[in-house]
């Protein structure tokens, strides 16, 4: 058997092996059930569902954005407080040093 002939034979066998399979017996019932469920929802109901979903999404994203803003604001305030504290400490240290220098000058005189 030459190559062309054996390939033709293989193609015939493939065609037989790949004949359409019967659909599962309950497939049609499931399709019709899902179709009925879908058809049972009026266009108004579908729009209401979409609107509700949009509102929920907007609330979730809006809430997340607000929370993030609050966190950033609090962090900013904390950072400012830390800077002020550092300045106060530095100022206190300088005042102490000034006092010590003044005392030292007085003693020298």
């Amino acid at each position, binding site marked *: 058997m030459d190559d062309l002939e054996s390939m033709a034979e293989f193609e015939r066998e493939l065609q037989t092996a*790949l004949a359409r399979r019967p659909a599962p017996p309950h497939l049609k019932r499931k*399709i019709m059930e*899902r179709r009925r469920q879908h058809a049972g929802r009026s266009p108004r109901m579908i729009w209401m569902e979409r609107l509700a979903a949009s509102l929920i999404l907007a609330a979730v994203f809006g809430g997340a954005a607000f929370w993030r803003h609050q966190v950033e604001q609090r962090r900013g305030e904390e950072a400012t407080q830390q800077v002020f504290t550092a300045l106060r400490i530095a100022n206190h240290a300088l005042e102490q040093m000034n006092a010590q220098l003044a005392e030292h000058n007085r003693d020298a005189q």
Partner: protein
Amino acid sequence: MAGTWQPDFEQLVDEHQSMVFSVALRMTGDYGLAEEIAQDVFLELDRHLRSIENPLHALLWLRRVAMNRSADALRRRRVRGISVEIDETHGARGEERISPLADRVERLLATVPEPQRAALVLRYQEDLTPEEIAVTLGAPLATVKSHLQRGLKLLRAKAAIHLKEYVRGA
């Protein structure tokens, strides 16, 4: 024609459920997933029923959408990192009985690269010409011919190893 033909959804399901299910099963290699895809395809048909012009249009539409939805399902599986392989229950679910050869050919087909598998399914299951396959897949004719040739060679080589006792041409 569009005005005279009234599509009957239930009749379309009766006529084409085997085709849609078989395309999905052979593309995905998963019985349960093929069932889901077939349901989704027919529900999509229901939504587009008004645009279906005649019985042939319905057949072509269903075949194309079944291929597309199967490809989508395979893509989602790849994203989730699930490889395409036929499970042990393949071909054994439901009440149907298929021949051992058909079962093993399906298993081998699942190991062929997806574009070649799509061309082979449409050629040997649906008996389409390369030109019709090109239209169905929206691919250039030369690409389809190449997929068919390579896929057939690959499948034959695999069959020569795994299906020697069944296939004379392998």
